[in-house]
């Protein structure tokens, strides 16, 4: 089975007010393609740090992070940007759509930065918008959409570059329970039917229940890794 990614002895130190904080003290995780992983942990457990590292927004202090055969830990800032544009799909708690762009244009953004925007990929953007149920709102601006609709647009955007995995950071944190259910259904469906790998950070047990595997962090270390 192919791996979506693998991290080995991942460590991250921060300098905070002259003191070194060991946010991650050596984490090793392997995630195969098609997996659905929930990452949990109390605040200060290193969960956000791990998320930033997995999202290629930051480089580890030591350890390796293999993504499609390349060690991300050794990449330059520009290369990291390329990886983010082409290989990772982000879904954020606060949707993070760009206000001045329409739904379709928001979905196009990763393609634009990955220099892959053309008529074929543009058609794909429309298809993705239809798939998440926004086919009739292509020309709407984010402010004209409900929270659930915005998050669905964000999910469509995370899929557009055909990523190694979708990285969802508290995707239901700002939504009511009904809409949360819809969003989680959508993620499950993508995982089950499309075979998409999903990494989801959450602190809600019932949200984590949806995943196939729950990884718990504590004090920068792996506390448990349970496959259900």
């Amino acid at each position, binding site marked *: 089975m192919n791996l979506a990614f693998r991290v080995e002895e991942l460590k991250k130190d921060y300098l905070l007010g002259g003191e070194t904080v060991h946010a991650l003290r050596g984490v090793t995780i392997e995630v195969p393609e098609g997996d659905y992983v929930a990452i949990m942990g109390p605040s200060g457990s290193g969960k956000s740090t791990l998320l930033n590292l997995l999202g290629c927004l930051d480089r580890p202090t030591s350890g390796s992070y293999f993504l499609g055969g390349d060690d991300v830990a050794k990449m330059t800032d*520009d290369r990291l*940007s390329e990886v983010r*544009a082409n290989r990772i799909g982000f879904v954020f708690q606060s949707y993070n759509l760009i206000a*001045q762009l329409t739904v379709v244009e928001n979905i196009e*953004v990763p393609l634009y*930065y*990955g*220099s892959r925007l053309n008529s074929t990929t543009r058609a794909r953007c429309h298809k993705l918008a239809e798939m998440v149920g926004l086919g009739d709102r292509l020309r709407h601006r984010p402010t004209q959409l409900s929270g659930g609709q915005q998050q669905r647009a964000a999910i469509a955007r995370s899929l557009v570059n055909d990523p190694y995995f979708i990285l969802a950071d508290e995707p239901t944190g700002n939504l009511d329970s009904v809409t949360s259910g819809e969003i989680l259904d959508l993620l499950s469906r993508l995982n089950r039917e499309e075979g998409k790998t999903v990494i989801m950070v959450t602190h809600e047990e019932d949200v984590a229940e949806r995943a196939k595997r729950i990884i718990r962090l504590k004090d920068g270390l792996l506390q448990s890794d349970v496959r259900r």
Partner: protein
Amino acid sequence: MTLWIRTWQLGVKSLLLHPLRSLLTVLGIFIGVASVIWLLAIGEGISKKAQEQIEGLGADNIIVRSIKPPNESTPDSRGPVPYGVTRDDYYRLTETINTVDRALPIRELRRQFRNNDRLVDGRLVGCTPEYAQVTHLEVDRGHFISDAELEQKEKACALAAEVAERLFPFENPLGQTVRVEDDYYVVVGVMKPREASAGIGGSLAAQEFSDDVYIPITTLWTRIGDFIVTRRSGSWEGEIVQLSQITLRVNSVDDVVATADLVRTILASKHRIADYAITVPLDLLEQAKTTRLMFIVFMGLIAAISLVVGGIGIMNIMLATVTERTREIGIRRALGAKRRDITRQFLAETIVLSIVGGLTGVLGGLTCGFVTDWLRMALENLFPQVMESLPDVVRTISPKVVPWSIPMAFGISVGVGLIFGLYPATRAAAMDPIEALRHE
């Protein structure tokens, strides 16, 4: 290619999110660019006019004018005071300096001219036939003073267009007579109207030609003489002046400066007091050119300051925009934007601002001729007294757009946009994506 189009589209779109703010920023650049063009055009208009007036005096001329010396320097204040250049000076100058092509003796007096009950206050000019040519006077009807009339000391006169109009409004002035004191002069010619020329002889007033009556200088010497009496605050004052002015025409422009030196030396040896002044139009012309250059530099400096102010406006607004859009920068970075993509995006916005400001500024600058005309007309109608009291330079101002000021102003505005946009843009690009995403 598509990348750049998208960048510009995005820039315009982002700017339109805050139309008023963008408009005000553009206004700053607009004012800067327009003022560069305006100020240079006004400067050019003024200096061109000054130059034309000086050229009207003739670049190959040297003008020696009598000046009444201050009272203290005349030893005997009782009785008539003789001063000024004399007929002897005239002969000496014409005979000793061989670079002098010809010399014009001129005598001017304030007199009243009458035709029956019509009366005009004006300048009686005793001169020689060459006078018309040297001062660029053109004959409208009849002829100017002729050599024969000069020789015979005839009582003939030529009238300036305005004088002719006022003394003989309904009849042909040719052949009629004009009374000056107790003498009658036959009108032999009428001149065309002529613009005033630059002031000379130390006085700032421009030389007017509109109330002139020209007679042969020989006639003036015989009929009126050198001795003139003027009434001043209750007492009579006598003056003895032989010549008001000698205009020397030099063979070639190259000899003007050397000849002027010679004239100075000759006159200085015969006059104990400074009762004359020498004007060299060529010097004035050189001076005017220097003044013009200084003017351009000065105006340019003021305009450059306003452009820098506009640039600071851009920088200010872009810094605010960058802070405000920190979150957007974070999102874009997370979705794969490189640092240079962010730099390019914000730079595109500032360039759009400065190009729009620059283009509208150029258009605004081009209206300066039209606007000054309109403003002058409005002022003349609304505040005629104010207009009357303004100096001539201001009243007759006509800006001339300097062609090179347009590309220069536009180029500077875009440059200013680039320079002042670079810092905010790099600051945006330098943001840590994680921090930027967390920004509320």
